């Protein structure tokens, strides 16, 4: 049988082992960087003392260097804290999937995991759908087509919202945004409380060039549901970062 607590422990060990090389690498880079800055600072200091005229200027620029160094340090900090957290046996259940995502955001400037939740699958989907067509044979496409047709018939018969969502996703992933819109709409009318379906519906709208309607939908849905995912998508549409 499953021993969850033992598994959790082993998982933690696995993650530490897995990220250990990154941790060492990160530390080395940090040290090298600090060393370089130190060298830079001392050489700047010596030149400053030899050039009396520019003395004040140089001294002003030195602290400036220190601050850039400090900001660089703070950017790298999250990944260190992340490893430390593991070593201290941080609460595992609550942190759940977040630790997996944190090491990379250490370099980028968009750390909040909530942002990552929604847009991410969409990105991987669109990448996949862009590469798919060349790989699969034409025979294969016919077969998949009959499969989706069968599912659509089943959806008509059962009106199962989860199936509707599945079909909507299927079409969205393949760039059939009108169909995706259509099935997400049907799904919403069967069950109006599925976050993902509203998200997919709005994303399809954007893809169909109806950005304003998408925003309005998301605003309304957010008012009703307080859905973080809806909010995140709305933000990314408004900032033009949604692709």
């Amino acid at each position, binding site marked *: 049988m*499953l021993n969850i607590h033992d*598994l959790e422990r082993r998982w933690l060990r696995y993650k530490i082992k897995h990220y250990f090389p990154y941790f060492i690498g990160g530390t080395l880079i940090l040290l090298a960087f600090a060393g370089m800055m130190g060298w830079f600072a001392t050489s700047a200091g010596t030149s400053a003392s030899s050039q009396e005229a520019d003395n004040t200027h140089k001294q002003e620029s030195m602290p400036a260097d220190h601050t850039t160094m400090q900001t660089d340090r703070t950017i790298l900090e999250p990944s260190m804290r992340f490893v430390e957290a593991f070593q201290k046996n941080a609460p595992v259940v609550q942190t*759940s999937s977040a630790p997996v995502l944190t090491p990379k955001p250490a370099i980028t400037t968009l750390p909040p995991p909530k942002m990552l939740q929604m847009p991410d699958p969409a990105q991987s989907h669109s990448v996949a759908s862009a590469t798919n067509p060349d790989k*699969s044979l034409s025979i294969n496409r016919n077969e998949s087509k009959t499969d989706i047709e069968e599912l659509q018939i089943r959806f008509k018969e059962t009106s199962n919202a*989860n199936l509707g*969502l599945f079909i909507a996703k299927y079409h969205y992933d393949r760039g059939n945004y009108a169909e995706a819109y259509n099935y997400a709409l049907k799904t919403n009318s069967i069950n109006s409380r599925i976050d993902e379906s509203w998200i997919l519906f709005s994303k399809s709208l954007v893809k169909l060039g109806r950005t304003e309607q998408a925003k309005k939908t998301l605003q309304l849905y957010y008012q009703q549901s307080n859905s973080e995912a809806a909010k995140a998508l709305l933000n990314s549409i408004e900032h033009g970062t949604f692709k």
Partner: protein
Amino acid sequence: MVENSLFAKPRDLFVDVVNAKDYIQIDSVSHMYQSLKNSVEKPLKMILLYGKPGTGKSMLLHKLHYDLSKHQKVFMIGTPIVEEEDFLRVLAQQIFGHSPRDGISLNRFLDIAQALTLPDVPIVLLDEAQLYSSSLMEKIRLISDARAVKFVITLHKTDKEDIIAKEHFQTRIWESFELKNATAEELKVYVQKKLLKANCFDVANMFNDKNMKLITAFTRGNYRETNKLLFALFSLYCWYEENHPAAIKYNALKPKWVEMAAIHTGLIRA
């Protein structure tokens, strides 16, 4: 147990059993299956299905058995009969309706086959042929050479050993098919179709390209390993469903739990 557990049904779907009714059409596999069926109709003497353990050879053979037996005489030996005399006796019984009390010799077997003029060469499917001795394999070869029986056999492909080079098959007129591990995309099709077939739509929605890639990385696209991993994963979900339901996210699989399931099944060491 939780009443109406959402994950118990998906879990039981991934028990590793082979049943023709559970066959799932995966593009590359059904393509191969079609060629396999065409080959059976050709005047070939032997057909070989090979590949690594867990790539779906037995499944394909069971499916072939299921489909062919609707229209013609076909006999399947799923568990190898390794005693030569027993093997020939069972075969004579099943395909020629002969029921000798004791084991029979090869010559006797060929005599029986010749005396009976069947409209078509009967088809015999042998699973796990790597378990037969080479002397029995040699007899199987002679039987197919005499066109008394047409064999479709499956073989493990062990790492070093090249089956094609095995002497039994070198001179024969035969065709061979190699089954391979699935790609991430194919594995996604496998998992989703299995879930959809059983009406587990909500759980099917939890699989996306990202977590399928993770699963494929752990199982290397092997169907049996994937079954094991998903069985463990849904067992985990069942546990959380009962003990800590708030931890479950319903829109996507948790990578952490996939990793935990991989640890549990020994796919990763920790």
